[in-house]
């Protein structure tokens, strides 16, 4: 294994732990990993809220926990754009909303 390959493996392991619920890499301080993961999540959430304030607002107080759940299952891929992230989150939220049945949307009388 070359220096580059070894470094690649270590960096990939760290990002997987921070962004995608991967196992903690050996030797890192567990609390520091948690703080870093939270900071990265908060930054990503802020960017999405800036791009699409409406979706953030529509989630109300659930925005942060919903975004955390979305982010864990959907880490940002190399080469993806922030706008795509915001759109994917909006679609994810929409898919989770309880579907209105045809009879629920009708006016009475």
């Amino acid at each position, binding site marked *: 294994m070359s*220096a*580059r*390959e*070894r*470094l*690649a493996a*270590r*960096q*990939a*392991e*760290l*990002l*997987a732990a*921070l*962004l*995608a619920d991967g196992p903690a890499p*050996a*030797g*890192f*301080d567990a609390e*520091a*990993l948690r*703080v*870093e993961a939270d*900071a*990265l999540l908060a*930054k*990503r959430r*802020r*960017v999405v809220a800036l791009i699409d304030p409406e979706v953030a607002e529509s989630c109300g107080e659930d925005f942060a926990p919903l975004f955390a759940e979305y982010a864990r299952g959907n*880490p*940002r*891929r*190399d*080469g*993806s754009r922030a706008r795509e992230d915001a759109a994917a989150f909006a679609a994810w939220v929409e898919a989770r909303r309880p579907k209105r049945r045809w009879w629920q949307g009708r006016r009475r009388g």
Partner: protein
Amino acid sequence: MGGMGELGIGIGWRSEIDLTVERLPGVDFVEVVAENLHRDHLPESVRILRGRGVPVLPHAVSLSLGGADPVDPARVGHLAEVAAMLDAPMVSDHVCFVRAGGLDSGHLMPVPRTREALEVLVDNVKTAQAGLGVPLALENIAALLRWPDAELTEAQFLTELTERTDCLLLLDVANMWANARNLGEDPVALLDGLPLERLAYVHVAGGVVRDGVYHDTHAHPVPPEVLELLGELCRRASPPGVLLERDDRYPADAELAAELAAIRAVVAG
């Protein structure tokens, strides 16, 4: 030592505060985030500043020079084109990685301070330099965690990097202070160990303490300790320029003007 260098005092240009940056007193130079510019046209505000002769320095965040992946020629090419369009005397990015294993961290991550990681970084920096056409300055980052197996101190790591690549140093004193506070590192020892003759310019920014951890947010006022560290630096070297970074929760113009004035006072000694 002390006094004003050839760049002077500056502020990070952001589209949200474009008019503010244009009318703030005492803005000698600005920085733009290179990835936010298109290579075929400049924002009008940036053109106005260039028209006044204000240097505009492209600052990149996505080269991932500390990463294990080979340097992306398209990203280097974009930075070179932006620099040419701005007639910029230099460009910069960070000593960090942002991509690995197919994921994008979305923020600057520290590289392990090992010989092996330094080899890869040096190799990447040389590749980038070959495609740039203007000098490259590299910035020390704020880290919330540390790799377990450092073989070099940050000063040794940065010194060897600059010596082997001939790159310049963009020294962020707020990042130094953040690391000192969060990771127990000694910022003055770092200052004493750095090749300050390679100083391109200096970054200053604000942050906030949350749950006992200092976050370098660029969205809060500059803490007095960061200005004190800038003072320590100015006792050791004359930085060619000092630039305030503010990226969010923009305050009133007067508040930014006061921060620039405070920086100028520290630099003037």
